[in-house]
């Protein structure tokens, strides 16, 4: 379990992480989502003691990272898959991890196998690795000590769709065995595929957090009828606030059952009735982080 309490980091007067608190639970994959420059990497570096926090604490299984007697046995960390000496071979990087942590040398072959790196590839220098191979090697290095907690910064970066699926299955399996996973991404799609819980961060602050199911729920309901006017009237009668989406369907924060009941009571024919899923979460992501986005043209109005 990772517990973050009121963690803040300021450089001079510039606050990059402000008062963030959340918990990544065991058995769950927690997605740390935010646009580039939102403070995800700084937060993760503070969790593992590479950056000193200005205020607040981060603990892993109740202890500060620096107080862990053999951190690699309890927390697997991958902050940047490319941050390795380019002249070392992949196998050597795993061997160093295995030696420092004091685990059997058989772990190296096991982990290479787990992340599907061949013996040939393990003998090559990481300077010649593709980004996807570096990510796999980084995951392997994080897992050498058989830790109960994983902290991964942008692990899906550079993976092809099959690779992302592979990582999802691997992390799912890991969490199902009781592991705690915290992974960051600036891509909602990745987080949606992999995570159970989502912590969204923008401009150094947490803008929302909860289980993926809750957040999808919070995205509301989408309803469509060939007779838009009648549908709006029926919703108005039931006291349900709606927004007309560009495609003519209506979106509301009200529960899906209540929306269906209101349409039924008003005798309106429906052609679509569903929870606003990925699109809704994406809208929320873009809306919540709109003022932090560098590319303002990606902004979309929701309301």
């Amino acid at each position, binding site marked *: 379990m990772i517990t973050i309490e009121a963690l803040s980091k300021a450089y001079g007067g510039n606050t990059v992480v402000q008062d963030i608190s959340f918990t990544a639970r065991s058995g769950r994959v927690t997605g740390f989502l935010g646009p580039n420059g939102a403070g995800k990497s700084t937060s993760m570096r503070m969790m*593992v003691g590479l950056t000193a926090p200005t205020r607040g604490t981060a603990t892993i299984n109740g202890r500060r990272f620096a107080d862990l007697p053999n951190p690699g046995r309890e927390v697997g960390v991958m902050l940047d898959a490319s941050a390795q000496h380019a002249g070392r071979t992949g196998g050597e990087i795993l061997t*160093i*991890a295995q030696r420092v942590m004091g685990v059997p040398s058989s772990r190296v072959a096991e982990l290479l196998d787990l992340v599907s790196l061949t013996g040939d590839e393990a003998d090559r220098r990481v300077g010649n690795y593709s980004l996807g191979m570096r990510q796999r090697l980084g995951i392997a290095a994080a897992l050498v000590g058989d830790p109960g907690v994983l902290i991964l910064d942008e692990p899906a970066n550079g993976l092809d769709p099959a690779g992302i699926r592979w990582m999802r299955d691997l992390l799912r399996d890991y969490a199902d065995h009781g592991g705690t996973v915290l992974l960051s991404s600036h891509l909602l799609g990745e987080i949606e595929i992999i995570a159970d819980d989502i912590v969204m961060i923008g401009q150094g602050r947490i803008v929302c957090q909860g289980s993926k199911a809750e957040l999808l729920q919070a995205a509301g309901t989408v309803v469509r009828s060939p007779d838009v006017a009648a549908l709006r009237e029926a919703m108005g009668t039931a006291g349900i606030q709606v927004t007309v989406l560009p495609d003519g369907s209506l979106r509301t924060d009200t529960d899906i059952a209540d929306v269906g009941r209101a349409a039924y009571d008003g005798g309106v024919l429906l052609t679509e009735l569903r929870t606003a899923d990925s699109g809704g979460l994406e809208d929320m992501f873009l809306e919540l982080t709109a003022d932090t986005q560098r590319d303002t043209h990606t902004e979309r109005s929701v309301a």
Partner: protein
Amino acid sequence: MSAMTTTTAGPTRARLGEIAPIPLSRVVRVELRKMFDTRAGFWLIASIAITGLTATIATIAFAPDQDLTYYNFAKAVGYPVTVILPMVALLAITSEWSQRSGLTTFTYVPDRRRVILAKTWSSVIVAIASMLFAFAAGAVGNVAGSTIAGTSTVWDLSAGHATTIVLGNLVSLSIGTMLGMVLRSSAGGLVMYFVLVLLVPNLTSLLATSQDWFAHAQPWVDLPFAQTSLFEGMHTGAQWAHVATTVGLWIVLPGIYGLRRVIRSEVK
């Protein structure tokens, strides 16, 4: 993508045994390994042996017969050791920042003082091994050289003098360690090192010949000057005092500053 195997990613905990603190000796062994496991690192250390052997052969070939003594051989073989070892010590530290491998190193061992201590120990181990090699190569060269020249073999290096030569090299080595901690950059560190060992001694000797006051102060403030007496033999207590003050001034003080920077700096 090859098929997944039976190995699971899930934490199994007990299988790898109890979680115990990492002993310093283990960190030293790993840091020693890291000095050799890249091509650059391997050849840097191999170059000590290669240039050492070249120096032995050159001494036999070019030195006048009366100079074919053990001290001269040991000095010739030892010179590359003196020049290259500080780079080994420096790069061991700076590569963690320049190659960014510190992101993993300092998460395996969060107490950065232990990592630096382990790196210093492994540099010292390489230094001792290199000097034993230099003394041995010097001995072989001395026997071979005097045999070839037909002169008698002269063993003119006392155990005490050999010890101060070792100390002199360890002082050189700690210049690398100090610079590594202060600058934490391979390129900047190497440039600064060559400025310190090649440029500064020339400037100070120039200053000493032109400025009388500096000629008096020099032994107390000039580190390479004080080191020379370690290499050429210590004869007076004042020489030891010179070594102690210059080492304190140029290695210990900046070293303390550098260590604080290492501990507090952000690893990115």
